[in-house]
């Protein structure tokens, strides 16, 4: 969700910035759902991305649902640039250690800043925000399809589904093998199907090309990735569906300001009108989204 900022605009002299201590500001902020997290670990994943694990209050974890996101401050205290928070959906929650993991790829200045944090530093969080994926009571077979860092919320959803004894097929596409999620990141109960543009692993081509085999198997489909992927998804799935089954839920990627439905800067055009993706999304029924 880093669409707001110019890509590849990494700072000059960023190593010097990294040495500055980040002042914790633990005073009351005056707002609920706002808290300071401590960075617990930063591990490389999927090429140039990182898994950023931060502390979070138990109360936050207990109400967090897959597909929800946090609006994260991506600058040093006292700096107003880059100004806006960045929305990140949760990759994984850890109830045992009271922590959250985010998948961060350095696209622009905010994500680059976030991906360069070190354990012990403080990060300003607002959340959980937004709606969530909804797994139907009658669904047993769930099909996930993720593009790039879009896999993040699907990992948390798959974790929960596997724990609840549901059958999960997880399809992921990337340019090359390096960009794929390692199979070890998913429960061994989950069938993991991959596609790469160069054929370095799995199917050679787009993830949406292997999708067809699973559509009629699935009770529900969940997707997260760039918008062109949803157009392809719709084109592939539509001829295979009967009475709009299986249903398809997608997480829409939008640049945001407030994250609370006030600014209407992140709307998604739907059959119901222009809808704030931060509050009534980011998860939408693909059938109602106008792409």
């Amino acid at each position: 969700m880093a669409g707001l900022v110019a890509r590849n605009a990494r700072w000059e002299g960023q190593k010097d910035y990294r040495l500055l201590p980040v002042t914790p500001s633990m005073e009351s902020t005056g707002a609920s759902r706002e808290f300071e997290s401590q960075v617990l670990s930063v591990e490389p994943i999927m090429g140039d991305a990182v898994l950023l694990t931060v502390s979070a209050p138990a109360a936050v974890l207990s109400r967090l649902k897959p597909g929800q996101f946090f609006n994260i401050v991506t600058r040093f205290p006292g700096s107003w640039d880059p100004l806006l928070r960045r929305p990140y959906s949760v990759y994984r929650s850890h109830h045992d250690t009271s922590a959250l993991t985010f998948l961060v790829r350095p696209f622009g200045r905010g994500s680059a800043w976030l991906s360069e944090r070190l354990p012990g530093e403080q990060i300003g969080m607002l959340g959980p925000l937004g709606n969530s994926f909804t797994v139907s009571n009658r669904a047993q077979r769930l099909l996930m399809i993720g593009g790039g860092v879009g896999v993040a919320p699907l990992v948390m959803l798959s974790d929960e589904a596997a724990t609840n004894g549901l059958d999960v097929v997880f399809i992921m596409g990337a340019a090359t093998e390096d960009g794929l999620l390692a199979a070890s990141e998913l429960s061994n109960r989950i069938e993991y199907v991959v596609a790469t543009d160069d054929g370095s692993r799995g199917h050679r081509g787009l993830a949406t090309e292997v999708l067809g085999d699973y559509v009629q198997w699935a009770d529900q489909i969940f997707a997260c990735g760039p918008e062109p992927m949803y157009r392809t998804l719709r084109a592939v799935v539509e001829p295979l569906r009967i009475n709009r089954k299986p249903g398809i839920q997608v997480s829409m990627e939008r640049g945001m300001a407030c994250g609370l439905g006030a600014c209407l800067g992140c709307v998604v055009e739907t059959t119901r009108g222009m809808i704030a993706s931060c509050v009534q999304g980011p998860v939408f029924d693909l059938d109602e989204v106008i792409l």
Partner: protein
Amino acid sequence: MSTAATPDLSVDLAPDNSRELRLRNPVIAASGCFGYGEEYSGIIDINRLGAFVSKGITPERRAGNPMPRIVESPAGMLNAIGLQNPGIHGFVKKYPPMWARWTVPAIVNISAELVSDYAMMAAILDEQPAVAAIELNVSCPNIARGGYCFGWDPLMSAEVTRAVRAATTLPLIVKLSPGAPNIASVAVAVEEAGADAISLINTLVGMAIDVRARKPLLANHTGGVSGPAIKPIAVRMVYQVAAAVRVPVIGMGGIMGLNDALEFFLAGASAIQVGTGIFVDPGLPIRLIDDLARWLDGEGFSSLDQIVGIANDGFRSGQERPLATWESLGV
């Protein structure tokens, strides 16, 4: 949390209006940044705010602009939301009844393209007990004058202010456009036309271009620049306007903390609005109230009005001034 700080933060923003606009403190959530209040009601204690201003309401419902509607800029942002709102009639059904249960004063921001539409909306709002005041957005194209922005011209700003004044006895705040070549003369004109207070500044019109796609980043091409990047411009304009008029001035533009707020008070603002800062830091307006009380107490002031305008030699002088001087031109 708040300590024993006891200075008087209250402010009267419509001293000459019998319907009054007395706020318990000078911190107001700005239009467009606070929705209709309910969006933040679960995040902060909105009843602690001095007041809040609704999103801009128009005569008819508006779907708003296509996406993208916002883009970040250095220490700021551009927005072109396009006044997405339910229109005055849909608005009146939904929000004032909700506000009636709150204690925080609700100010309604109105926008239109015709003087008669502004007056029509003001007349409707006049009958709403839950509406504390109107903020008139004059940064709109006047379609009867070829789309020239009302707020850029003293006479057009005065015309719309006069029409709204005739349609309502509600406290009336006119929100000035920083695009005016001489903002003080617009301020004087709307004061004479019946404004109870003046707020400024609205966003500055800007643009950002996607170099790779070779086209503007915003679907609307241009958008309003806000945030810390515009603060010096806002402080300067508040300084000039506060010297030229006698009605209370409400300052805004890039306030992110106590020091920023103090600059506006010292320049002559009786109250402030926080906009973009709320997006980034939702707790900011409440924290500003506490920080301001603590600061005044620590500096030995017993009330906010003791610091308003003290950095402004001409504060509330209302003097006729040359349209420009070397000083006013920043030379």
